[in-house]
């Protein structure tokens, strides 16, 4: 069996809530509350969930853009969490991120050339002329005209900017790319262009992806395996086909049934969940989903369900399967 490229163990990220006169910490927002998974080289792990489920926080915590509260993030066997500043800087060449907002993710004062040169300058990669060549190659690779280097971000459309963001992440030749809602802000016709580009890049450059999204059909299209998050907790993890064909967790089922499909004749049984997402500052006891779960039992409000295999390779945290 091959070694995992990334191994995340019991990762937690709590944000303190400060209240009162002295701004004392009176509680915690448990944005990410104990997440464990591993990613194999060359695969795409889709991470899906609604707003507040902690998927974006998880992405940033893995990269230590946010300091994890506890847990381990091992990249090729090396724990990222304890690394010193300099070690971390070197590590950043291995893992890169692409952001959601194509308008906020590019520095408006930089030309595209500068945006792509800067990472190589930071890491002292290549000679000056080789860097320029690499910028041109990268632009070409993501489907942009290499003559664009002297233009500024605002001269591009959303889809083009997202291509530039991808090119920037690739400048340092990373092994792992964390894609944080990379197509959420794009129109469908452009979204499919970018999704196909990501697939092609993965094949050509042997990249490993963690693909964070809220759109289930996009996740299904791009992922090998899918992790479903709810309120900072893992609900379900399995092969993509398996999750969509046979969802086990009631939350996954509700989520899937809620997605409107483009077939006007398809009559599906729709599960409409009651109420809103609870606040991660004050999560329910027991299973975090029990307040909205149509299949909730007595035990659900008392005991946190264990994370275990319900079928081979299909993990789920739900009392229905224990």
């Amino acid at each position, binding site marked *: 069996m091959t070694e995992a490229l990334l191994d995340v163990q019991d990762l937690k990220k709590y944000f303190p809530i400060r209240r009162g006169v002295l701004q004392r910490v009176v509680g915690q927002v448990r944005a990410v509350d104990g997440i464990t998974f591993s990613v194999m080289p060359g695969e795409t792990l889709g991470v899906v969930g609604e707003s507040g489920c902690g998927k974006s926080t998880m992405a940033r915590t893995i990269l230590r853009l946010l300091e994890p509260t506890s847990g381990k993030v091992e990249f090729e066997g090396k724990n990222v969490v304890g690394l010193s500043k300099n070690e971390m*800087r070197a590590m*950043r060449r291995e893992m890169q991120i692409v*952001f959601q907002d194509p308008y906020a993710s590019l520095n408006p004062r930089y030309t595209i050339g500068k945006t792509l040169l800067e990472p190589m300058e*930071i890491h002292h990669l290549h000679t000056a002329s080789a860097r320029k060549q690499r910028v041109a190659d990268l632009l070409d690779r993501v489907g942009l005209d290499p003559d664009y280097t002297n*233009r500024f971000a*605002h001269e591009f459309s959303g889809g083009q900017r997202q291509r530039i963001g991808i090119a920037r992440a690739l400048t340092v030749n990373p092994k792992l790319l964390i894609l944080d809602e990379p197509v959420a802000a794009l129109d469908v016709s452009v979204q499919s262009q970018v999704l196909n580009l990501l697939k092609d890049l993965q094949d050509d450059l042997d990249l490993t992806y963690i693909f964070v999204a809220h759109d289930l059909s996009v996740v299904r299209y791009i992922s090998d395996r899918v992790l479903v998050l709810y309120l900072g907790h893992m609900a379900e993890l399995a092969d993509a086909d398996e999750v969509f064909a046979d969802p086990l967790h009631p939350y996954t089922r509700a989520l899937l049934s809620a997605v409107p499909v483009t077939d006007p004749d398809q009559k599906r049984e729709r599960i409409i969940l009651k109420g809103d997402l609870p606040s991660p500052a004050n999560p329910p006891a027991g299973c975090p989903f029990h307040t909205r779960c149509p299949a909730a039992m007595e035990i659900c409000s008392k005991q946190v369900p264990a994370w275990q295999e319900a079928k081979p390779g299909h993990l789920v945290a739900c009392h229905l399967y224990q």
Partner: protein
Amino acid sequence: MSVQNASAAIGGASKSQKKSRGALFWKSVRKFPMVYVGGLIVFLLVICAVFAPVLALHNPITQYQNGLHMDGTPVGPSKFFPFGADDVGRDVYSRLIYGSRVSLIVGFVATAISLLIGTTLGLISGYFGGFIDTVIMRITDTILAFPFLLFALALVTILGSSLTNVLIAIGILGWGVMARVVRGQVLSVKEFEYVQAARALGASTPRILFRVILPNILGPIIVLATLAVSQNILVEAGLSFLGVGVQPPTPSWGNMIYAGVQDYQFAPWLMVYPGVALLLAVLGFNLLGDGLRDILDPRNATH
């Protein structure tokens, strides 16, 4: 999608159109005429200050006998004294030209002092947050609690009246506003994903502060500095009017106005000309700053 966004999105997708620089210039003049009026005034002011010896007709502190009538009252505007003479026979026009130097020096140097302190503290405070932020902001609040003119009066009283002390007084009091504005800007800019991207790429903290964040908040800083120059010129004039600051016979518009108050009834030129000069100078910087703010406002962006 808001209405504005809708129309922006429709227009925004276009490629930048190739237009001559000249055409673009005149287009922006048409759209923001006031900023160019302000810029022109400031430009002329700088010319006055730099070329004062060339532009002045007479020595500004020489007391001319033909500047006074037989009864000792100053003579009005004439060929020899275009703006008249003052109560001891000095040429008002030449004093006005030289007076621009004081205004500009105070305006620029005091602003530079507060800009340097304010920007540095604001950057640190906004970027690092936490305890450092709290400490810096409380210091800023303390500085902001002192009214400008009165504090400057106190400082100049204690340190003595001189141009340098006026500069120090205005400079060390002016940074409070700057620090606050810069901090606010940093707080909003640092949330942008391009800053996160720079961190993810391994950029060092100084690089992020000075090469990523600072250039992106330069616009508001420039606007603020321009408006601060106008305010500082007014404060200097106020201090000179109160008799602290630049001491006669060195001309400053403030002390010229003060000297003209008593004679306003029969020699109005003594007060009117320096007052108008001061008004124009301050208005110039105000127009420039206000206009720059409009131009830099993304809502008015012309692609």
